[in-house]
């Protein structure tokens, strides 16, 4: 690709599409787009299109965490997204993204896993988070993390009661009312901000062409309060410690704004109530 003009433009905060180095493309978010899920969300960021579905199912707690439920992530890189994903071509990227999601959620505060416990050591809620890549237009990690957060916000878990009879055997009673649900607090769910190093500067929300010009990137997982939960460097090129520090600071700053924007859009959508016009896939 034409790497020369892109490199020189970064030194004056003007990218090929007119954006500054810290500008995101327009993001579209819609939740509750898949009917037979506990929660779902679709995020469009430029030409990147992500669909996330969450299914809450009953399972057994893990041995080392008897009082908690847990999350499982699956990422499917659809062959529709790009010809490179034909056959098993998308498997490696899918595994990489799933592993990154496990990492960013692997801490005590992202999701209150204790709230997913039904009865210790016996029953808990397992949230199966399925991520589907519909189209690849650059900056996959950011878009996926936004979609996962929106889908978890949308997730409704049925309220259950544990009934114990005289002999000590337990029975789980599901509420009759389909609207009697518990919801997750997604306040501390982190989002990923990817910073791509191009020339001497770094940019957020890189397009496919910009990613091709970048030899090294930093993925920063940030919470709404600006706390970094994890960082990962990708790419063949090297990053000097000063760059890493600068990129991390940009990631924290940009991440906070990302969370604020997402929260306001999700609340706006919810305030429209059940009568809102769903756009979905044919709109």
């Amino acid at each position, binding site marked *: 690709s034409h790497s020369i003009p892109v490199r*020189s433009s970064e030194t*004056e905060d003007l990218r090929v*599409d*007119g954006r500054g180095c810290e*500008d995101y493309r327009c*993001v579209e978010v819609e939740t509750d787009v898949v009917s037979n899920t506990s929660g779902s969300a679709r995020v469009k960021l430029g030409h990147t299109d992500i669909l996330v579905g969450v299914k809450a199912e009953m399972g057994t707690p893990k041995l080392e965490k008897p009082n908690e439920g847990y999350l499982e992530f699956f990422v499917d890189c659809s062959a529709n997204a790009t010809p490179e994903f034909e056959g098993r071509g998308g498997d490696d990227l899918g595994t990489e993204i799933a592993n990154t999601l496990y990492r960013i959620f692997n801490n005590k505060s992202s999701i209150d896993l204790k709230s997913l416990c039904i009865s210790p050591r016996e029953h808990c809620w397992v949230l199966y988070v399925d991520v589907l890549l519909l189209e690849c237009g650059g900056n996959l990690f950011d878009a996926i993390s936004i979609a996962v957060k929106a889908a978890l916000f949308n997730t409704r878990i049925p309220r259950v009661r544990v009934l114990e009879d005289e002999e000590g055997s337990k029975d789980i009673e599901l509420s009759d009312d389909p609207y009697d649900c518990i919801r997750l607090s997604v306040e501390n769910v982190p989002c990923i901000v990817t910073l791509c190093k191009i020339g001497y500067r770094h940019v957020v929300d890189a397009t496919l062409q910009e990613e091709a010009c970048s030899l090294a990137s930093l993925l920063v997982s940030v919470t709404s309060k600006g706390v970094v939960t994890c960082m990962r460097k990708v790419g063949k090129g090297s990053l000097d410690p000063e760059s890493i520090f600068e990129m991390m600071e940009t990631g924290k700053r940009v991440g906070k704004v*990302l969370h604020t924007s997402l929260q306001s859009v999700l609340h706006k959508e919810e305030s429209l109530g059940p009568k809102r016009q769903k756009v979905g896939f044919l709109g």
Partner: protein
Amino acid sequence: MAMEMRLPVARKRLSESLGRESKKHLVVPGDTITTDTGFMRGHGTYMGEEKLIASVAGSVERVNKLICVKALKTRYNGEVGDIVVGRITERRRSAEDELAMRGFLQEGDLISAEVQAVFSDGAVSLHTRSLKYGKLGQGVLVQVSPSLVKRQKTHFHDLPCGASVILGNNGFIWIYPTPEHKEEDAGGFIANLEPVSLADREVISRLRNCIISLVTQRMMLYDTSILYCYEASLPHQIKDILKPEIMEEIVMETRQRLLEQEG
């Protein structure tokens, strides 16, 4: 920094917003266009079982007795005299080639060229036997569907807004800063790698976004449509041009102006 998150808005049908009275006759490959055998068949159609059938997906166009289907999206079909922009991926290895050309044009170079001949399998041979063709230096490439590039007398335009474009018939559009003086001596073999000024880069970015807007709204690309779109976009910031509602507004204004110019 700028960040905008929004809820999706259902797109309006293009025909509704244009107020078209007659709906276009859209077909997909295999659709019957007409059972009337009195018509001559044009591009995108074939005769089968006493009826005219479409071979491409697009809209049916009729000129007197000729029916053809204009495809919405096509692969590039080369014709002699076409201008193309592309990147050299592979070279034919001939002894003459090895000695002479490798020094000037190498694999990985972006070039403009003219179609010299078309082979029966659709392959084309290109030549750069004029000083206006050759290696392309700094600029921005936009890839669009070849069907949207209007055929004109010339595909090299120096736009009055301060940049130049090459509208390749193959759908590759090259936007670059207008050279200060025509380099007659070097021809097209030495790429200019000097840094491009911020003002020039703003013009180029704006043109790039305008071209993408026109293409998204299925408008034909030629010097006038691009220029009108550029002028309509001036009240907006460059990065806002790609927002759906602003894109619609700018292209609507362009369409309006083009209609007025024709009428």
